[in-house]
């Protein structure tokens, strides 16, 4: 037991450090299923309507791919099915939390500082695991209580809550193993996230296969996400996947403990490889440095966007099929803002989501400047013959052009997959590519807000995320709640025409671009005047 001495104190430290992020994340995630209850009740108030919707959804490859298989048509069935993506979200959060409190601590040397105090060998790992398991459990309880309060069956609600917690627990344990493998937190994070993505893709492939001949439907059984979805809350409440999840979690935790016992603090199982002894001839400018620092991020977002484009493009045609057979659904889609056809409306909605994601990338790329400044990496660069504008500009290339590349990848992928399913690749590729690129000015406005914050209030630079959260809220609430137009107008996305299908005028693009340029210029002007903070 002496190996665990100090776990309690470290646990309190983790809870203290995450006292804002963790509750925010847990509550935000737990509230999503409640939103589904309201929206499904609103769209399909009758059992017959739900049955029809369920029947179509269960045979729609796009939906099954995104959320998993649907096997009932009760309100609970539909909510649990629509929440099929939440285990992935919880898994991601669990991975990030565990890595942040294990490998990041070691990489920064803080673990060593604590390790020298009265803290057992496994105390740090145990505290990170307990905190994350705890957060997952609380999330599950909130889901269960929330759904029960919405008059869904209590048993099913608890099972759904526990399903989420079980998914979170497995990826928590997985991250604990990943944290033992590499010396860098970044690589550990990548390993765990790739494993999560693999679990999702295996489930997706298996479930889609099961809709047809089912030759590779066994793939779902290789995926922890596939297991927990076999629990089927409200429609069977099977318990055996919980046993499986508990076993996997236990095995992974023991593996993490065993690995951590075999290595030194700070070391990893995989040694870091040596790199170049001298800089390539091209590594001679701030832009070359920025490319080295941003290329991984850019590649990740571009690949992610291309995959989303594939999914969105593939789903769009099935939405059209569904709407052709269902009068009420078509009315709804038309009311939400579709002007020339349900499919265009769906594609425009997908591109709207991509636009918000692209802003997340733009803000992340901008905040890299702040990271460079607070990590002490900016100081040596600014002590060379590099002006502040050149330094900032080299990063802002990625802020403003990175999202363009990502959106182009998504538009291209959407155009190809939709074009293949609809049989008009030649027309749909340029159309969807242009529609995707059209959201760029709105993305730039959000990016420019982050630039202004960085220049004027560097300590509050992260508040740029708040602007994105506000736009996301308006995007999600806009269709459902009747908001005054001036409220909707706050979001730059409101001013972008709904494309494809909408009417295009140059004014909004010009105005938004000018606003973005003015904000960015103001931020950079202030950056030139202010102090570069010390470590």
């Amino acid at each position, binding site marked *: 037991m002496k190996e665990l001495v100090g776990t309690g104190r470290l646990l309190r430290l983790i809870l203290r450090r995450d006292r804002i992020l963790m509750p925010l994340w847990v509550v935000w995630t737990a509230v999503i299923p409640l939103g589904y209850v309201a929206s499904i009740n609103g769209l399909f108030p009758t059992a017959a309507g739900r049955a029809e919707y369920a029947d179509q959804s269960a045979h729609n490859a796009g939906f099954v791919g995104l959320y998993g298989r649907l096997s009932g048509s009760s309100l609970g069935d539909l909510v649990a099915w629509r929440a099929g993506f939440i285990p992935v979200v919880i898994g991601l959060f669990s991975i990030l939390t565990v890595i942040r409190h294990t490998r990041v601590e070691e*990489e920064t040397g803080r673990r060593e500082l604590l390790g020298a105090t009265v803290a057992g060998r496994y105390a740090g790992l145990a505290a990170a695991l307990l905190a994350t398991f705890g957060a997952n459990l609380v999330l599950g309880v909130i889901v269960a209580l929330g759904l029960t309060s919405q008059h869904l069956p209590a048993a099913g609600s608890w099972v759904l809550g526990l399903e989420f917690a079980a998914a979170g627990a497995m990826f928590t344990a997985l991250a604990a193993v990943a944290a033992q493998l590499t010396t860098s937190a970044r690589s550990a994070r990548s390993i765990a996230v790739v494993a999560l993505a693999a679990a999702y893709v295996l489930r997706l492939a298996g479930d889609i296969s099961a809709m047809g001949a089912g030759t590779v439907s066994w793939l779902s059984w290789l995926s922890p996400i596939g297991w927990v979805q076999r629990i089927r809350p409200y429609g069977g409440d099977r318990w055996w996947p919980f046993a499986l999840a508990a076993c996997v979690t236990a095995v992974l935790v023991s593996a993490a403990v065993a690995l951590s016992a075999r290595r030194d603090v700070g070391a990893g199982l995989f040694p870091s490889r*040596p790199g*170049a002894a*001298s*800089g390539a001839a091209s590594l*001679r400018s701030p832009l070359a440095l920025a490319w080295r620092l941003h290329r991984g991020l850019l590649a990740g977002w571009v690949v992610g966007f291309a995959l989303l484009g594939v999914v969105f493009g593939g789903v769009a045609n099935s939405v059209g099929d569904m709407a052709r057979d269902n009068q009420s659904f078509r009315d709804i889609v038309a009311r939400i803002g579709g002007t020339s056809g349900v499919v265009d409306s769906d594609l425009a909605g997908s591109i709207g989501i991509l636009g918000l994601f692209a802003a997340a990338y733009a803000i992340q790329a901008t905040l890299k400047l702040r990271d460079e400044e607070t990590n002490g990496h900016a100081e040596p660069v600014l002590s060379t013959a590099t002006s502040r504008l050149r330094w900032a500009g080299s990063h802002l290339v990625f802020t403003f052009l990175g999202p363009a590349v990502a959106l182009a990848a998504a538009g291209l992928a959407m155009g190809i997959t939709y074009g293949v399913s609809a049989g008009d690749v030649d027309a749909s590729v340029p159309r969807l590519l242009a529609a995707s690129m059209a959201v760029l000015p709105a993305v730039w406005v959000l990016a420019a807000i982050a630039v202004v914050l960085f220049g004027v209030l560097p300590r509050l630079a992260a508040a740029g995320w708040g602007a994105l959260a506000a736009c996301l809220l308006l995007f999600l609430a806009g269709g459902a709640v009747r908001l005054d137009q001036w409220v909707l107008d706050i979001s730059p996305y409101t001013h972008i025409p709904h494309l494809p299908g909408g009417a295009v005028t140059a004014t909004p693009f010009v105005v938004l671009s000018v606003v973005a340029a003015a904000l960015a210029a103001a931020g950079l002007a202030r950056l030139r005047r202010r102090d570069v903070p010390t470590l």
Partner: protein
Amino acid sequence: MTEAIRTEGLVKTFGHTRALDRLDMSVHTGEVHGFLGPNGAGKTTAIRILLGLTRADAGTARLLGGDPWADATALHRRLAYVPGDVTLWPNLTGGEVIDLLGRMRGGLDRHRRADLLDRFDLDPRKKGRAYSKGNRQKVALVAALASDVELLLLDEPTSGLDPLMEEVFREAIREEQRRGDRTVLLSSHILSEVEALCDRITIIRDGRAVETGTLADMRHLTRTAIHAELAAPADGLATLPGVHHLRTEGGQVRFDVDTEALDAALRQLTAVGVRSLVSQPPTLEELFLRLYDRKGGSAAGVDADLDSDPAAAAGSGRDGAEVSR
């Protein structure tokens, strides 16, 4: 003699803390100038103002004939900087960082780079995250020393280096000194390092320069320790002005004496007959301790009344011939 650095009345406040309080300093071209002071005295703030990273609230600063804030980019072509706490990009190797920083300044001397890597025993192929503190420091040092520049701004550059590497660093600075055309501002709280390397020294305390000059100049301001074995008791010593902490044990006397009273004191000793004599010059450490040991004292000139100094503090530096850290 031209000046590489000159500041007059530099003031910088952070919130309620006054980091610099009318700092005046002057560094001559071609010299190695020690910038000495304990943690928090304002050394780093002063260097950051000289680099144009921070703007002074008041006062003027000139660097290589230019304004460090307005002409930052042009001036940075002619200088190299080593921070006290070097952080490297985790995914760039040490060699890449050295080349990148050198190229973004005025250029890099390939031979000197190879020579320094060898002498500092640094593996340039490791990624930034894999280096220890001392090795990160070496990366920044090699990048600065191999750069083709006129001025080196070194902010506590040897923190984290082992004694062997510190010796390599000293040798490298001495080479710069011999070349004669490079100016080095060496901020440090390691007295032996400053004592061994610097032509002139500025001592900073609470954001003000309290002493400046050569080490010899400063020694004039303090006392020499005398330990003598005498043929007979020397009665006049106790009443002689400038003699402090006089202790007599049998035929032996120990005392500290102000530089201006040294001659008179020695006359007293030789008058009674000296059998053996050990005289120790004041170390920089002593000077330093004298300047800092007065809690809340005035700007602490060494010429203030020194009798109230704790004898232990003054004596500790004297036990070893070299200044201990």
